[in-house]
Structures are given as C-alpha cells and as structure tokens.
C-alpha cells in the first residue's frame, strides 16, 4: 500500500470515527433535549417554564428559626385522616373516614369506634368521652366507644369543621354558616359566637375554604381561626371579643396564602402551634401572639413525597394538622401523604 493510499485510508477511518463520535454526542444531546411521553412519543423537554408559579424561595426557612426537629414517624397510611387530637394519657386520636382510631404513644392501635358516616372533627373531654362532628351534627361516645347521644342536625348549610370541649361547654365551628355554635354537654344550643356584630366590634368570620378551627386556650378563652382574615380571635364564652393577633404575609412570621392558619392547638405552656396549608408550615407563637419559631417547614413535608408517597392532586390546599402532648412534643399529621410525625424541641 502506497503512502498516499494509506493516508487516504486513515482519513476515511478518521472521518468515520469522528462521525461516529459526533453522532453519539448529537444523540446524547437529543436525548437530553427530548422526553418520552405518552404512547412512546417524544416532546421537547422544556425545563424552563416561562409561566412557572415558583415558591422555591418562599419555601426556604432559615435554620436558625427551627425550634423543633423530627423525632420519629409514628404512623403511615393515614390518608383518610381529617382530624388529630392528643389526650392527657399520652394517647392520640384520629378521625379517619368513618372511624375514630386511638393509638398509644408508640403508634399501636388500642381502640376503634366505628361511625355511621364519615366524620370531620373530634374533641375529647376529661372523662375520655369523644364528641364527633359530622357535616351537620354531633354524636357523643363514652370512653368505651358506646354512642350516648346524637344531637339535632343544624340544616343544609351547616358544615362542621372543628370541635372544642371545656367542662360543660361544647363549641362547634360551622364553616357553612360562618359561626361558632355554643352548646352545653346535654346538646342544647345556648349561643352563637363570632358572627358579624359592629356594636360588639366583631368583624365576622371569613372562611373561604373548609378549614376553620376552634380551641379553648389555657386562659379560658375560646380561640377561633378567622382564616380569611389570617388571624386568631379570642372570645369569652358569652361571645365578647377579647383580642386578636395574626396578619397575612408570605414571610415566616405571618400566615400565608388565601386562608390560614388551617389548624391550631396549644402547647402545655400556653404557646400556640399553628398549621398552614399551601406553603405547608407548622410554627409556634408565644401566648401574646408574637412569632417564636418553626416546628416543620415545606422541606419536612417534601421529604414525605421523597419517600415515594404521592400527594393527592384532587385535594388542593390540604394542610397539616398538629397536636401537642403533655411533654411539649408536637405531633404533625400530613393528610396528603398520611404520615404522622412527632417533633421534639431542640435543646
């Protein structure tokens, strides 16, 4: 083979090599730029969404604000859960569709009450009796799970979202009628609280979504989540407005979105634990309403998804639910993934 033939042969070989390498690079580039979609067809992978609704920056929480850390995961697969309550004996109770399930502090089921229909909310009194809120009425069960009473329904517009019990008083948050109904333990309606009343300087409730929580605080006042106004309001049992706190902001010290806090509860020392939907956050506020710190932020709930648990797309705006045990630990239920976690204070 002459030199010229050899050169020509090498050139051809090089050409083929270069072509193959270039083709491979082009192929890899094409793979990166396209995406297989339904029916095996390809579409451009448009990572840059010019219309993206981006909450990434807002979801970041300064680590210095974290006051709690995850201690353990108590239960999973609680996707039907809609309410969570802790009792003084260390147990906690969940409304899951048409059942009240009681767990010990290790997450073992110790009791179940079967209900006649899916319920929305739950409260327990000091005797262990359970008050269960359905769409338009309340049923009462004794500590052994036997039904003792079914109170009169409150009409087509009623939509009960939360219950609170204190001694002889039962308070029902009726989101459909935007009012807190005040009952005695015998099931007699004795008052209506938080309705608009300019003479008593009460603005009235703004409840854009079916999240409307009530609880009786350590000071003996009835606290009401006026979610559309992004604040908590305290009333006497006679319906006088005592004080309010809270404001709307995406910043960490306030309540975000259209209607928050979606749930709240109290720590044994009187501080508030608040839950927000949308940008899922669980935070602690001091008894005077000033911001204290964060229990769980969006990253904690993203972890649920990272573990392979999907969020129900048909249930937008689902928010976490919190309860506090006697030791000051906070139980947080994410209904979207069905995970119940316990958070403990950072020493």
């Amino acid at each position: 083979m002459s030199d010229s033939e050899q050169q020509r042969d090498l050139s051809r070989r090089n050409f083929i090599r270069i072509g193959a390498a270039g083709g491979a690079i082009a192929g890899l580039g094409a793979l990166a730029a396209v995406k297989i979609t339904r029916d095996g067809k390809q579409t451009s992978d448009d990572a840059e969404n010019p219309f993206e609704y981006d909450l990434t920056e807002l979801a970041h929480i300064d680590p210095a604000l974290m006051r709690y850390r995850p201690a353990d995961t108590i239960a999973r697969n609680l996707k039907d859960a809609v309410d969570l309550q802790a009792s003084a004996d260390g147990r906690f109770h969940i409304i899951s569709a048409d059942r009240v399930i009681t767990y010990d502090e290790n997450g073992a089921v110790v009791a179940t009450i079967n209900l006649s229909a899916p319920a929305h909310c739950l409260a327990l009194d000091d005797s262990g009796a359970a008050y269960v809120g359905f769409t338009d009425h309340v049923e009462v069960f004794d500590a052994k799970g036997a039904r003792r009473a079914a109170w009169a329904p409150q009409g087509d517009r009623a939509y009960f979202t939360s219950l609170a019990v204190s001694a002889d008083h039962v308070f029902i948050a009726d989101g459909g009628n935007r009012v807190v109904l005040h009952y005695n333990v015998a099931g007699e309606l004795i008052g209506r609280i938080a309705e608009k009343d300019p003479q008593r300087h009460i603005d009235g409730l703004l409840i854009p979504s079916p999240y409307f929580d009530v609880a009786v605080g350590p000071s003996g006042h009835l606290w009401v989540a006026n979610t559309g106004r992004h604040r908590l309001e305290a009333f006497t049992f006679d319906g006088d407005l005592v004080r309010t706190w809270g404001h709307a902001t995406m910043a960490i010290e306030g309540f975000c979105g259209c209607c928050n806090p979606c749930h709240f509860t109290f720590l044994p020392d009187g501080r508030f634990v608040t839950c927000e939907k949308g940008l899922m956050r669980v935070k602690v506020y001091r008894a005077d309403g000033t911001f204290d710190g964060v229990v769980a932020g969006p990253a904690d709930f993203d972890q649920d998804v990272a573990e392979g648990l999907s969020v129900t797309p048909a249930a937008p705006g689902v928010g976490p639910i919190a309860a506090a045990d006697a030791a000051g630990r906070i139980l947080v239920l994410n209904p979207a993934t069905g995970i119940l976690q316990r958070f403990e204070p950072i020493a």
Partner: protein
Amino acid sequence: MPDDTPHSTRRDFLTGWVRGSALLGTGALAGVLSGRSQATETVWQIDPDKCIQCHRCATECVLTESAVKCVHAFAMCGYCDLCTGYFEPRPNELNTGAENQLCPTGALQRSFIEDPYYQYTIDDKKCIGCSRCVAGCAAFGNGSLFLQIRHDRCVNCNECSIAMACPSEAISRVPAETPYKLKRVNET
C-alpha cells in the same frame, strides 16, 4: 392410479387471493370510516384533577392562540381579598396594579363585591391558557380555577399536539355530548 386429491390450480389461487384482497380492502375501508365516525363523536378535553399546570397548553396547541382557556367554578371560589390565583406570591399591595398580578396577560379580572369579598372573572380574549393562575389557586386555595379545551376554538385534531406533550396525560378524548370536565363543589 388416478390422483383423486383436488388440486388448487394457479387460477384458483389467484382468484382466491384477489377475493381475499378485496375483502381485506373492504374491511380496511370500513375501519377507516368507522374511525372517522368515532372521531367526530369524541373531542379532546383536560381532566382538571390530572393537570399539573406545566404551561404546555399555552405553547403546544396548533392554533396560534391556544384552544385552552382558564375557567372558573364560582361555587368553589372563596371570593378572597388575597386571591393567590390573582396575586403574585409576594404582592406589593392587594390592588389591581399590574406588578401585583400573577397573570402575564391581565386576563384575570378582580372586582369588588362587598366587604370583604372580591369576584374573579376571566377575559377569554386575553387568556392564553398558561395556567399560572390555576397553579396559584391550587397551591393555596380551593382549586376553583382550572383549564379546559374550549370547543368553540378547538379544531379537534386527530392527534392533539397538547395531549402528546402533556406530561401528566391529563388530556384524552371524551364523548362530544359531554365535552367538558368541570369542577364542582364536593357534596360530602
């Protein structure tokens, strides 16, 4: 010994082949016609529960202005002052200033009803189906804003280019007599 076995002659073979081909062709024609008939009885639509607000409805439609528009289920709306479908995540103020609006074309209109309620309506001519408002509403609110293929605009392509690009497979054919998948208030 005579051979009694019936023979298939070349003519028989060809005749049978031609008959078979004719039958096959008729069947194929019937299939095509049937397919066309079926195509006219179904239309494309978005399942709002599967939509992940990826924006492709705005960019993948064969029409210059997408056939996809936002629609509003008023019965589900909270009529909020701070509407997360209307306002940027961190608005300067809760007013109609363009800098506060989430919609890139100003298609979502805000009007005062009575204290403290506001109504939000969609200007179809401005809506490009980008789903930003849908994402904002779904993230914090009741999900009352959602996308639908508008059949006064859709040309009902055999292969919907948006459906092919849709990463959540939210678009499928539905019966033409029920062409929309609307959101409704949950009765329970």
